[in-house]
């Protein structure tokens, strides 16, 4: 089982996700520089958080045009699992792999804190480590996490069960008060139609170890490791 983490100029959660994945996969993912035109043959591709190109112009916009992203898109379309976290989510929307955009937080401020998420669907390779509607605690840290899309796309996402996570309160209730950034329908993460691409604003890699204050993120990577092992074995 192998994974690759794409590193852009300005990525800064690349090492964090590398550490978290290594703990669950048993081996460290390969770090791939954005300028590469090819990708190693891996079972999972992660587009990490950070500020690729400083988030200048629009978060994710410039990174989406990096040479390696053409290859990421191709692999994603071939069914390779792709996980985009925070800036990675922004980049995946800019490439068109995921619908919608991440706009400036409604509060107009960067927000770094633990929030609660409701797992909307646990039948994906990314969320199989959770129960359906499980409430998990995971940090966010972003300035542009305000998910927006047009009504038709939203209806399609909802209809197809492609909303992976929603911001909720500790009891699991979806409310405006629990929405940290103004996201449409409290959306914190969405899947592509085939279910092999997930983008999410929260950072599961930041609470994947007890010493850092929580382990709710760990289940995602453990679940992924299991799913990929199974897929590899079959």
């Amino acid at each position, binding site marked *: 089982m192998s994974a690759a983490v794409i590193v852009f100029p300005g990525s800064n959660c690349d090492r964090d996700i590398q550490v978290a994945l290594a703990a669950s996969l048993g081996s460290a993912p390969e770090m791939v520089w954005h300028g590469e035109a090819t990708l190693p043959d891996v079972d999972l591709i992660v587009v990490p958080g950070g500020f690729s190109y400083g988030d200048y*112009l*629009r978060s994710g916009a*410039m990174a989406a045009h990096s040479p390696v992203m053409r290859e990421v898109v191709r692999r994603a379309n071939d069914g390779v699992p792709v996980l985009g976290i925070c800036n990675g989510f922004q980049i995946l929307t*800019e490439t068109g792999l995921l619908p919608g*955009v991440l*706009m400036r937080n*409604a509060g107009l401020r960067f927000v770094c804190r633990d929030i609660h998420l409701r797992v909307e669907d646990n039948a994906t390779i990314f969320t199989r480590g959770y129960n359906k509607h499980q409430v998990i605690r995971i940090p966010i840290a972003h300035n542009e996490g305000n998910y*927006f899309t047009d009504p038709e796309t939203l209806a399609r996402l909802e209809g197809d069960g492609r909303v992976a996570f929603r911001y909720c309160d500790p009891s699991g209730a979806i409310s405006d008060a629990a929405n940290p950034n103004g996201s449409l329908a409290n959306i914190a993460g969405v899947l592509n139609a085939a279910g092999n691409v997930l983008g999410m604003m929260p950072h599961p890699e930041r609470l994947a170890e007890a010493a850092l204050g929580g382990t709710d993120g760990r289940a995602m990577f453990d679940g992924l490791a299991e799913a990929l092992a199974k897929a590899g074995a079959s």
Partner: protein
Amino acid sequence: MKARIHITLKNGVLDPQGKAIEHALGGLGFAGVDSVRQGKFIEMDLAETDPGKARDAADAMCQRLLANTVIEDYRIDIDE
């Protein structure tokens, strides 16, 4: 020649910054201010000397990078 590009949010797309500005202006005592929208304004020098080609180039830049056409419209002015 110079290209001047305005990138604005499409109608119907919520503009949190515009809202915040409107609110802040109200707080400062400016009355009668409404529908504030904030966009981007990008200027650049182009080596191209043909206005038509310059516009086409700028248009391609907007399509590919400068604007996110899911939420944004753009307008290009070419200045000789």
